[in-house]
């Protein structure tokens, strides 16, 4: 009888419904977790190595290949960072088109995670296809929302995975107003569906769990953060992106092919939807703020399981924003601003669906990349995921092994971990000694 053993191991050898390969190992002694390891065994691909010597113009296409789930995030962070190195800013309608493209990726990525990967945990299914048998309405609504996100990215980017229309300075080809307007009816349906998703997720049962997190996200003077802003936290951090390297440290340890971040002298922190929501509630567009309030969710929400509701709120936000951008769209005079070649270093963070995505490039006077650094959101969240599992130990110890494994996996999936990105995840081992 497991509940009578004083100690045990909880193992998940291959974490499912996450993007990439990873595992969890936990050793429990009574109610205490003696050891918690999130192990990422995604084979390393060395992007920062082979970016050296490539043309600056290639960075958006090359770094997109770090992640098939959030390629737009990589295209945006790399473009912004190199543009800053070159002293270029992209404004007006081109900037709005970038936000529209990113909105498409948020819809696609959040709908995939919320409905296909995370919701089955809350309803007790192995996967969304099995869930579809009992909850066909929910799954088909999720798939339709996801498809709308794909349609936005496809129209603007050329295709939904690894779009081809993003370049330094803007785009290769501009969409006509009439093309974008074809998206309006589905986006209007999507906004309504996102509101319903907020109420639906708010009605699910959530494990009792909170932690005194340091939430870290971008903050922009007048927008919910996506493409730019200062780095802020609920514990006093407020710095420009250029100081990232001075405050955040990446460490390499033996059980992971992903680097793990922490704040110098302070420890682990949380990035992603929960952090954005808690730090930028006042910047949400009115429909999203209204949806949050009607679901009874206000900052500070410290239950990571409720990131499910926050993703639904962010879906309201991005559907609403996409509609506004298309309704106001007047094609800019040129598809991209001119890109010079000159030596320099540039930094950028954009808010990927999973959290802050940092890029830094040094380019030479011929436009060749001399140095690159990329920090993915899952690397940043790795240590806080382990902290969550450690604090969850008493609850895990009280459950039978199958339920304990399920809950531990669910806790990891709160972060929508993208292991392909961070290796640059998942197997669960809980050992009870």
């Amino acid at each position, binding site marked *: 009888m497991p509940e009578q053993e004083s100690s045990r191991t909880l193992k998940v050898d*291959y*974490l*499912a*419904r996450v*993007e*990439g*390969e990873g595992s969890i190992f936990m050793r429990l002694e009574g109610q205490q977790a003696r050891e918690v390891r999130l192990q990422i065994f*995604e*084979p*390393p*691909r*060395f992007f*920062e*190595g*082979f970016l*050296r010597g*490539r*043309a600056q113009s*290639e960075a958006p*296409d090359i770094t997109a*290949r*770090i*992640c*098939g*789930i959030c*390629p737009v995030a990589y295209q945006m962070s790399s473009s912004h960072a190199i543009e800053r190195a070159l002293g270029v800013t992209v404004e007006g309608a081109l900037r709005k088109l970038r936000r529209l493209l990113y909105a498409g990726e948020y819809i696609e990525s959040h709908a*995939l995670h919320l409905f*296909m*990967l995370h919701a089955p945990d809350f309803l007790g299914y*192995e*996967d969304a*296809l*099995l869930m*579809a048998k009992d909850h066909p309405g929910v799954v088909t609504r999720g*798939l*339709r929302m*996801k*498809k709308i996100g*794909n349609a936005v990215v496809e129209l603007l980017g*050329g*295709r*939904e*995975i*690894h779009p*081809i*229309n993003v*370049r330094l300075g803007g785009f*290769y*080809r501009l969409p006509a107003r009439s093309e974008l307007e074809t998206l309006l009816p589905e986006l209007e349906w999507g906004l309504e569906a996102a509101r319903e998703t907020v109420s639906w997720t708010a009605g699910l049962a959530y494990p009792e769990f909170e932690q005194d997190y340091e939430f870290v996200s971008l903050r922009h003077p007048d927008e919910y953060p996506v493409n730019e802003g200062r780095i802020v936290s609920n514990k006093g951090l407020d710095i420009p992106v250029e100081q990232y390297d001075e405050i955040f440290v990446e*460490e*390499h*340890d*033996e059980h992971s*092919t992903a*680097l793990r971040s922490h704040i110098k002298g302070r420890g682990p922190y949380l990035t992603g939807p929960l952090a954005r929501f808690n730090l930028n509630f006042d910047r949400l567009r009115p429909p999203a703020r209204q949806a949050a309030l009607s679901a009874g969710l206000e900052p500070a929400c410290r239950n990571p399981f409720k990131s499910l509701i926050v993703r639904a709120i962010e879906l309201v936000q991005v559907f609403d924003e996409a509609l506004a951008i298309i309704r106001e769209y007047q094609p800019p005079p040129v*598809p991209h601003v001119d890109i010079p070649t000159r030596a320099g270093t540039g930094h950028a963070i954009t808010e990927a669906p999973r959290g802050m995505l940092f890029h830094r490039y040094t380019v030479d006077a011929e436009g060749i990349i001399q140095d690159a650094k990329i920090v993915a959101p899952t690397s940043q969240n790795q240590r806080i995921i382990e902290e969550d599992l450690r604090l969850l130990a008493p609850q895990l110890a009280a459950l039978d092994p199958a339920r304990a494994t399920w809950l531990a*996996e669910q806790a990891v999936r709160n972060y929508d971990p*993208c292991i*392909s990105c961070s290796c*640059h995840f998942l197997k669960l081992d809980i050992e009870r000694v």
Partner: protein
Amino acid sequence: MAATAPRLAVWKFASCDGCQLSLLDLEDDLLAVAGAVEIASFPEASRAVGPGPYDVSLVEGSITTPHDAERIQDIRRNSRILVAIGSCATAGGIQALRNFHAVKDFVSLVYAHPTYIDTLATSTPISEHVKVDHELHGCPINKRQLLELLNATLNGRKPVISPHPVCTECKRKGIVCVMVAQDLVCMGPVTHAGCGALCPRYQRGCFGCYGPSDAPNTAAFASSLDFHGLPPEASVRLFRSFAAGAPEFRDQSLAIEESAKRSTSSKAGH
């Protein structure tokens, strides 16, 4: 679902997850596919893992670690039909750029403790390790082609997938040649079709993400790049991107480097 539904498995090696995401991106057809097969193993989508053997295995990613070189052998033994999907699985992927360098330099550049990292010197396609029944090209693959391939395989017929270059797709769609009309560098003449001539439709030259077409004349294409004044190092980068490990592109990139070296040394000799 019939009791005899074919059993489908999806496997991942070094990759971005994008090609298997194409399966989830089938959206409207996803539930139909799920109804026609038993999804025996698909970790990205489900916790449930059924044991082999499998009727069809879709393999994403390239082989880059000693462990993965063994894992693919197991998968082959347990699969009746094995399909390599995407540029990583068919040509080594973008990570095959390591094949042109000493991998230890990359390891020490990215990781503080290189000894923790167990990696092979090269990134290689699945076909260099086991027999592959079908290959689907692209970075990422085209989801309609994936559906066609699944449909054909499950019905025991040959998939209808064009081996032609991207140029053929432009001509069929009546797209004005971006190389001729706009003087853009375009890899369409030597790149495998399947994307629907996407880049030319977006006022951009093809950058070869579907890898080489059948029997491409890469040498003639390389001399046209030279004729248009593209520096050799830029031509090398063009062949060395998302299908850098495909023999046709790899060998051409090496040939350009060789000839650039020869011409530098002959100039130095004058």
